[in-house]
């Protein structure tokens, strides 16, 4: 029944076409397609680097990447920026599980620990550090010791970014809180601080200090709470055993939150402001003080004619403390040759060497040759609050914890409700317990 007509049948044509289409797939070993299909490396001399920096941080990171390309060539680096928070860490996790991780990635110190627990990171040995002329002693010991997990180095810290207090010079001057040099007078005990709040409130005719607490903002209420909580000498960890036990000291929790609620009721602290508005209150003189991470320096400096300063948060209880995290470099688990390992370390070293660019964005450098340099010490107002990094308090290690995590989301939302006077500290504590129940009772999947 096959009638040979001599012409190409439709089926024959299709078969031939499919065969023809397969040839380039198999032939070109260095093509992007085969790289995707067979896992071949696109070009071995290019280092793949992932980060999560947007805004001012993103611009500065791009400048540092350009610095690396200047040394190692235009094709030496493929840098990709992803959306901040859980989506970023999900991508790092899945790429590593799927054996296609970047050569180097950025991680918050508190998020590097769950990645390590999941077996997704490679240890960074003293030999690795030495290969590019680094050693443990080159780093601020606070982040350095915080990253060490199970006795191993899992991440190289680039910075520490503590919660700090911004002040509007004009408003604070009118409130009589500036010395002759234009520095904020020390406000290091509760009575002094509350008197200052009252004085500023008189000047502004409204809020004295702003804290972002609505519009999906859960990180700031958490940072503020965790700072004051840890200023108590009896403060216990919020979570213990990698997130299996809730060990927060409820008396201190209530004390700190009662205090915050009192400030809101007095009209000293805003009841409900989103991130951008809380900040604009400081810029426009509607408030004298503003609590946020030091990275907001870029925004503050971009406001024309705005005079401000930044200081560590005043010690209102027993001991200085500031909630903080660190941006670190991690080596995701993958098969690397010694050469690739060295290449990754060279990249990290090049980034550390450019810490000064990073420091201008507000972050306190972790790399001591830069942090101790005269140039950094002359940087204003950065050097004014650099000591906050010495009292950095990181979030407790938990498989669902860390910056921008599920834990911060749950607890921060309740702390925000306290500041909005929508919830009492006791009710918030009860809600936190209920919502964390699933996570406390679930063994770590990592």
């Amino acid at each position: 029944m096959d009638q040979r007509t001599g012409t190409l049948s439709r089926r024959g044509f299709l078969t031939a076409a499919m065969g023809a289409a397969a040839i380039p797939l198999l032939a070109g070993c260095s093509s992007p397609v085969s790289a995707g299909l067979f896992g071949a490396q696109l070009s071995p001399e290019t280092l793949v680097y992932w980060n999560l920096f947007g805004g001012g941080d993103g611009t500065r990171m791009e400048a540092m990447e350009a610095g690396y390309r200047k040394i190692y060539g235009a094709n030496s680096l493929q840098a990709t920026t992803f959306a901040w928070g859980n989506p970023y860490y999900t991508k790092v996790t899945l790429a590593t599980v799927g054996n296609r991780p970047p050569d180097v990635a950025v991680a918050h110190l508190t998020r590097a620990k769950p990645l390590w627990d999941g077996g997704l990171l490679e240890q960074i040995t003293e030999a690795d550090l030495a290969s590019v002329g680094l050693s443990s002693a080159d780093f601020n010991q606070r982040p350095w010791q915080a990253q060490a997990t199970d006795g191993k180095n899992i991440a190289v810290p680039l910075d520490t970014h503590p919660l700090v207090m911004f002040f509007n010079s004009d408003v604070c001057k009118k409130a009589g809180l500036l010395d002759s040099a234009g520095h904020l007078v020390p406000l290091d005990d509760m009575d002094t601080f509350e008197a200052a709040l009252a004085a500023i409130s008189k000047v502004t005719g409204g809020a004295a200090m702003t804290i972002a607490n609505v519009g999906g903002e859960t990180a700031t209420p958490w940072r503020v709470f965790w700072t004051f909580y840890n200023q108590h000498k009896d403060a216990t960890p919020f979570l213990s055993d990698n997130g299996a036990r809730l060990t927060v000291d409820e008396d201190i929790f209530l004390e700190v939150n009662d205090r915050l609620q009192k400030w809101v009721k007095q009209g000293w602290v805003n009841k409900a402001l989103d991130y951008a508005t809380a900040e604009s209150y400081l810029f426009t003189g509607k408030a004298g003080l503003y609590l946020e991470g030091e990275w907001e320096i870029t925004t503050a400096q971009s406001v024309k004619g705005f005079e401000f300063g930044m200081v560590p948060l005043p010690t209102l209880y027993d001991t200085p403390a500031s909630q903080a995290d660190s941006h670190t470099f991690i080596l995701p688990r993958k098969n690397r040759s010694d050469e690739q390992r060295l290449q990754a370390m060279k990249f990290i070293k090049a980034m550390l060497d450019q810490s000064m660019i990073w420091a201008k964005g507000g972050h306190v450098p972790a790399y001591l040759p830069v942090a101790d340099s005269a140039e950094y010490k002359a940087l204003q107002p950065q050097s004014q609050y650099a000591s906050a990094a010495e009292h950095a308090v990181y979030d407790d290690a938990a498989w669902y914890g860390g910056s921008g995590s599920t834990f911060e989301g749950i607890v921060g939302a309740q702390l925000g409700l306290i500041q909005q006077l929508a919830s009492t500290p006791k009710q918030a504590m009860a809600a936190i317990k209920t919502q964390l129940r699933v996570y406390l009772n679930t063994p770590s999947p990592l």
Partner: protein
Amino acid sequence: MTTTTLIVPPRGRSRYAAHPRARRDTRSAWLFIAPFGVFYLAFLLGPTIYMFVMSFFNTSTVRTGLGSFAGFANYAEMLTRSDFWSSLWHTLQFTIYTTPPLVIIAFVFAVLTNRMRHAQWFYRLAFFLPFILPSATISLIWVFIFTPSTGLWALAQEALGMTPGSGVLSSPNTAMIGIAIATLWWTLGFNYVLYLAGLQEIPRDLYEAAAVDGATPWQQIWSITVPMLSRTTTLVLLLQIIASLKIFDQVYLMTGGGPGISTQVSLQLITGTAFTDNRVGAASAASVLLFIVIIVIAVVRQIADRAAARKEF
């Protein structure tokens, strides 16, 4: 007499199979279906079976293998989690908001387009065009439209003399409605095209006969168009309900499940549990529960449909 037996149609497959040409045709048919079959097994049936298995284990994203046996613990956890129930409700809420308008408006527009004498192509294009856009694009467009105080929506509100609020997507009461409106604009074209195809199947003689008998256009629609399109409606309704129950991308891109978790839908909870919490086992249990809900809804709808059909005849 005996001739009648000759016109009895051949019964069963055996007679076809006996024919050598038919057998060869069957074989090549299987061959042509095979690529699809392989993909179906590898990427749909296989993972589905794996999902059922995983739902009974503490499977982790970062560990190989199934992990320790959990029994029904994952199911128990999901069934006692308030955010699981709220996400299920938000999924149903979205389905309720989108299904009736997507069926009714698509029908109305199709009937109107079908009556157009000129430039029908333009309406077909205009209504179908949004459907070819990716969800990321429609989400961006509608987030712009819903931007508080400066968006198109706020401008329209101002023009109507209303005071624009904090924005449709920033209030827990209206965020889901905003997502439903964007979805309506986006996916209407698909149902519309199905209806238009159905309309063109209806013989014109029916309308002519009805017109001769003095039926008004309304009566024609009610007594000819609607019943003749009942099969299309069945299809559209089923496809629409299932599509709406699988809602994910618009919510993820437009509100991220917020404010709070007020628009978090089931698939988002599942994604979060699987990839943020790294608990694929627990996420599988949630997936199985959603799967059951979808099947129950499909079966109930099918039974209702059968009952309605039986009443007609």
